[in-house]
């Protein structure tokens, strides 16, 4: 109630939480917290990367053969989409910093659409695996000399890409929420921090994909 009667200059200062001395200190606290969260996320994906490393070492022939059964085109197109979405996300952060509401909303909307496009292409790729009978546990009909090893490769492929897609889905939903909130003029100027933290998450998910491509798609064809 008091806040309503305060002059605009004082209300603007409330962007600073009372436990902080300066906006910079507040920003560093958010950044630090987000990076610690991302460190735990790296451990989550790290478990899968480690499992992949072990099985690829032990069953390298089957993993190379399994990798050749993936369609490079899906991987390449999705890489371009995700890298571009990281550009639009970075531009959204910039627009928020500069207080440009329309540019912020536009950049966020494009980011969310690119994220959805990635997920749609991923879904089409999954559908192809189902049609080809290369889904371990659900639709596995592949027969061949290295069938069990290839099945293990596809298990790793599904575990890693599905966990990544879930993260991207969470990112898309959060970007959509932030876009709606930005409509009401939130996140501009000194209040841009939430957009920047969302950007950190988005770029992290992008980095995970950048490593999934050589491990899953490029390994077979190159060896």
């Amino acid at each position, binding site marked *: 109630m008091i806040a309503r009667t305060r002059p605009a200059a004082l209300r603007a200062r409330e962007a600073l939480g009372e436990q902080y001395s300066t906006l910079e200190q507040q920003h560093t606290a958010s950044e630090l917290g987000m990076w610690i969260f991302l460190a735990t996320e790296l451990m989550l994906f790290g478990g899968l990367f480690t499992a992949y490393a072990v099985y690829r070492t032990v069953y390298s022939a089957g993993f190379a053969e399994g990798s050749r059964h993936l369609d490079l085109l899906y991987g390449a197109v999705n890489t371009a989409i995700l890298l*571009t979405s990281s550009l639009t996300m970075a531009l959204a952060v910039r627009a928020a910093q500069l207080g440009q509401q329309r540019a912020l909303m536009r950049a966020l909307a494009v980011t969310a659409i690119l994220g959805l496009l990635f997920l749609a292409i991923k879904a089409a790729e999954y559908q192809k695996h189902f049609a080809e009978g290369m889904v371990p546990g659900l639709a596995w009909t592949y027969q061949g000399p290295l069938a069990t090893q290839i099945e293990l490769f596809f298990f790793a492929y599904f575990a890693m890409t599905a966990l990544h897609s879930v993260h991207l889905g969470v990112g898309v939903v959060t970007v959509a929420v932030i876009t709606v909130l930005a409509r009401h003029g939130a996140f501009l100027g000194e209040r841009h921090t939430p957009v920047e933290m969302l950007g950190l998450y988005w770029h992290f998910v992008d980095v995970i994909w950048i490593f999934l*491509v050589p491990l899953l798609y490029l390994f077979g*064809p190159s060896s």
Partner: protein
Amino acid sequence: MDGVIPVRVHVVVWLVLLLLAGINLGLSQLRLGGWSGALALLIAALQALLIALFLMHLRWSPAVVRIIAVAALLWLVILIVGTLDDVLTRGWLSAPGR
């Protein structure tokens, strides 16, 4: 991070990222075998570094934030190396009775 990063920097980083992705894709078609997996991961690491430094602003972040990023990477290395050193050296020593 106080300053606002110019659009030009973002676009250049984006183009380099696309270029590196293209190079990685092209290299896989050359069937270099042997070290090609390590080379592909090296290029991916370069992409990740560009994203971390410029898009995730680590280049301008305070030291305390950078330490977390480096520590996260270090934990990952410990996890993978600590697991692989077991897998890769299992056959080196013969246990009695085997």
